[in-house]
Structure formats: structure tokens, C-alpha cells
């Protein structure tokens, strides 16, 4: 499934909103999450999961081909952790 298919489905399900309006809403949701992560915030969506940023320290790596040392700057990587109720539901575990 893709975002556009999801937008179609929601448009069919919800009364009184056009496809265009649903599209704007869905885009606003993901854009606002993207903005929060770009600011370095974590996101907690109850019943769904959390998005967290982890700091990776700068390190010296080697180019495997030439053996040359290169400095890798510190960076942030994104992690998603599924929420427990959702994980349980996926695995047929009663709460």
C-alpha cells in the first residue's frame, strides 16, 4: 500500500471531505512529524509506536578498497519502536 492508496481509502470512508482535503491532511501529518524529527525531537504515538533519534559519534573509518583512513562525522540516525499494544495485536497476544 502507498500513501495515495491510503488517501483514496480514507476519502471513501470519511464523509464530507474531498480527496484533495484528505491528501492535505495526510501530508500535514507526515510533514509535521518530519519537521519534529528534523528539530531533534522524538515522537510518541500512543498505540502505534515511537520514533527516536540516536546519536552516532564521529569515528575514523577506512575505505575498504584503498585502506585510506577517512573521518566520519557524528550524525543522528532514526529508530522506530513499535508500541506494545500494537506488537501484541500483531502476534495475537491478548492484553
Amino acid at each position: 500500500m502507498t500513501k495515495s492508496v491510503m488517501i483514496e481509502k480514507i476519502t471513501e470512508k470519511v464523509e464530507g471531505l474531498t480527496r484533495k482535503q484528505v491528501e492535505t491532511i495526510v501530508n500535514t501529518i507526515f510533514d509535521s512529524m518530519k519537521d519534529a524529527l528534523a528539530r531533534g525531537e522524538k515522537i510518541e504515538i500512543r498505540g502505534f509506536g515511537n520514533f527516536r533519534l540516536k546519536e552516532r559519534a564521529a569515528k575514523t573509518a577506512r575505505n575498504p578498497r584503498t585502506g585510506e583512513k577517512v573521518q566520519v562525522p557524528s550524525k543522528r540516525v532514526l529508530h522506530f519502536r513499535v508500541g506494545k499494544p500494537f506488537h501484541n495485536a500483531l502476534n495475537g497476544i491478548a492484553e
Partner: protein
Amino acid sequence: MTKADVVNNVFEKVGLPRNEAQELVEIVFESIKHTLMAGESIKISGFGTFSVRKKNARIGRNPKTKQEVEITPRRVVTFKASDQLKEGVK
């Protein structure tokens, strides 16, 4: 950021009444959940892809007691951020 902040953003930027914004945000996350429950992955362009992977049973060990326990087969959700999101975050 919590779900309430996401709702607030939809309320402010789209101008949808707060209760409707709340409802739509719930519907979006519910539909992602339903898709994943059905075993299908979902790609949100510009954000990332959520997918479900099946894990086989394996033997784990309680590191404290060294006791071996079977880790039951399970389904896990993985998220792969889009290049655009990774770029924005780093």
C-alpha cells in the same frame, strides 16, 4: 511530539475543527496498523516504509541466569526512513 501535537498541527495548518482533526489522525494511524496486520507493507513517500517481518523461533538466554528459553516465532514491524527523512534528520 505526541499525537496531540500532530492533531494540533492539522487543526492549525488545515483549519479542520479540532475533533475532526483528531478523528483523521486516528484514522491514518489505524489504517497503517490494519495494513500491517494484514501482512502488507505501507510506503509513505517522503517519509518512509513500514513493513512486517516474520521472525522464526530461536533460543535465547537470560543473561543473568544463563537459562535458555525459546523465543517464540513472532511478527515484527520495521520502519525504513526515506532518504529525504534521513537527510532532514542527520
